[in-house]
């Protein structure tokens, strides 16, 4: 069992800095998800843990031991790749036993561990097949099986589900969650799918351009985003951002408004603002509710309405020609051009400085 700890870790390819000084501490047995837009360095971080990439600067510790200079095999980690990376010429059984074969394990030991992994992954009936005779989800299960037979201290997953279709992805997501409870090992999981992140993680690390934006439990990140990037990244449809004028400012709250927004008081959460300046007001589409005429805080007209059955997503044009998305949790008919007034709980709104 092992903790993983990045201390001031940097990674550069030539003059391009890909990871720009990252400090993350992952506890023993924790399930941590790295999430961020494409190219932000998630895979690079994971590959540094595995030992597939050199660390340019800083230290990486696994189980309290600095591993910067250690070979992949000396680190006690297992990795599951997006492209499965299972050996095409071996049967499922041989693939799952690969790490044991390499370590020179005895036949009965291999048999027993493969059988156990196959039972956990519910694929006993597939053991004698070759990868070409498996579906995508089954292949990924083989890759996971190969990882668990060795009982590593740290599991690394690099977008393991992104090659699967939506239904299968959900099954596999639940399976990974179950696996995690059974194995209790430290797991680090890279994804750009926020549903995976929200449902699986103990803590999420949000990355952007090689820097950590925020680390925290899923709900913490959702409800208390540290900055505008995290606020906009998590949640679907993503948070609305309105440019507002700061009309008044006192200790803990600011009064803000603009052409389409009646003045409201929003907590500043000790972020710096200046009276008379501008700020960004963030409000999630799900928190907006329809208001009776003349009582709304936000005024706009319907541009487009999408009925999804369980919810209705409305695209509004505000008075100042900015767009706003509202999601109502019921099936409702809106006609383009209808005037619409909205209210929301101001405690659920976030105020960010204009530059971040």
């Amino acid at each position, binding site marked *: 069992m092992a903790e993983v700890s990045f201390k001031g870790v940097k990674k550069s390819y030539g003059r391009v800095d890909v990871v720009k000084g990252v400090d993350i501490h992952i506890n023993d047995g924790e399930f941590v998800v790295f999430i961020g837009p494409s190219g932000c360095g998630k895979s690079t971080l994971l590959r540094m843990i*595995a030992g597939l990439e050199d660390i340019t600067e800083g230290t990486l510790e696994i189980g309290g031991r600095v591993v910067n200079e250690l070979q992949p095999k000396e680190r006690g980690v297992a*990795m599951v790749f997006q492209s499965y990376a*299972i050996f095409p010429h071996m049967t499922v059984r041989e693939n799952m036993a690969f790490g044991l074969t390499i370590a020179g394990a005895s036949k009965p030991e291999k048999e027993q561990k493969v059988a156990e992994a196959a039972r956990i992954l519910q694929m006993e009936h597939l053991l004698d097949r070759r990868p070409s005779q498996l579906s995508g989800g089954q292949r990924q299960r083989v890759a996971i099986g*190969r990882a668990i037979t060795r009982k590593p201290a740290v599991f690394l997953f690099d977008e393991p589900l992104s090659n699967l279709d939506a239904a299968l992805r959900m099954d596999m997501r639940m399976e990974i969650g179950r696996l995690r409870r059974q194995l209790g090992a430290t797991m680090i999981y890279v994804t750009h799918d926020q549903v995976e992140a929200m449902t699986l993680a103990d803590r999420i690390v949000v990355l952007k351009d090689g820097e950590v934006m925020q680390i925290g439990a899923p709900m913490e990140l959702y409800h208390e985003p540290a900055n505008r990037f995290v606020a906009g990244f998590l949640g679907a449809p993503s948070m609305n951002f309105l440019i507002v004028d700061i009309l008044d400012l006192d200790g803990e709250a600011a009064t803000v408004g603009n052409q389409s927004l009646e003045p409201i008081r929003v907590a500043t959460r000790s972020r710096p603002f200046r009276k008379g300046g501008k700020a960004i007001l963030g409000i999630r589409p799900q928190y907006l509710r329809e208001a009776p005429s003349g009582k709304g805080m936000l005024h706009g007209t319907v541009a487009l309405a999408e009925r999804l059955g369980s919810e209705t997503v409305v695209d509004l044009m505000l008075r100042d020609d900015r767009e706003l998305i509202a999601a109502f949790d019921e099936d409702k008919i809106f006609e383009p051009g209808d005037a619409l007034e909205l209210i929301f709980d101001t405690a659920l709104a976030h105020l960010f400085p204009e530059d971040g």
Partner: protein
Amino acid sequence: MASKLTLSNRTGWTFALPGFALIVIFVVLPFFFAIGLSLTNQRLLSPNPTQFVGVENYRQLLGLAVVTLEPERDDAGEVVRNEAGEIQYPRLRKITRSNDYPQYRGMREWFRWQSGENVTVVIASDVVFMKALVNTFLFVLVVAPVQAGLALVLSLLINQKLRGINVFRTIYFMPVVVSIVVVSLLWRFIYDGQNGLLNSILHGLTFGLFQPVDWLGNPSTALPAIMAMSIWQAVGFHMVIWLAGLQTISPTLYEAAAIEGASKWQTFRYVTWPGLRNTAVLVLIVITMQGFALFAQIDVMTNGGPRDSTQTLVFQAVERGYGKQDISGGSTISVILFVIVLTISLIQRWLTRER
């Protein structure tokens, strides 16, 4: 569909015609000509009319027999020995020229071995052809594995991200782009018995202990010398094929193997080699074909000598067809070669089939 392809596609067929005609004239027709001519007594220039002779040419080439010679005995029934104590045997000619054994007529000794008091002699109606056949097989049996293996090692060495690796790739590939005739000429100098490069180097390396060898003039070294030179010449070509195969193997498989703890050798055994299976089949088939077609090196370097130790099938086919103007004999050798190569290809295909 068939009618559409064959009938209504006039333009297509018109375009294909020149290439098609060339293939027919230079590949298909000669192929059937060779089979046809091998059944006649056709000569290149001859006043006599051509006659159909059936399989006589094949019989003439492939005729093989084993005879056992018993020691000569004196009147008392004792084995006759010469002064050195060696057992005396009757002359082989007594059999091959005797009217008692018409089936052995005209055959000559190929090789013999002692078994007890008797000696067993293998006689062939065309000993030179037999030697050519054995030499060709020997050449393929040695060159195919050695050249393929060496090419694989080279391709593994140059399949790395190193500064200047392309210089090495170019150097190894260079002999391939030089004409085999030129290469053969150069190697004749290298193998020269007096002051050839090879002798000089060996002489220098052993501080003068090494006695110069006439590599191409000695029956026991001529064929190995040609093998070595042939391996060197085409190894770069097969290296490139292996390299192409290596680059089709997904890098993530190597990463997965590294994380699972595989050593260099284990990585090769479990990832690289299985990934090269199809390439291996290709390389082996190509080398086998090239090996059976061995000609230019022989023609330039040894002319089949010394003492027929470097005769090969293709060299014999050309030598007979054009040197001795015996077109039917040359054709017969070509057909036999075709059957051999076809058989080996089918066997290889069967051995490497998808299971």
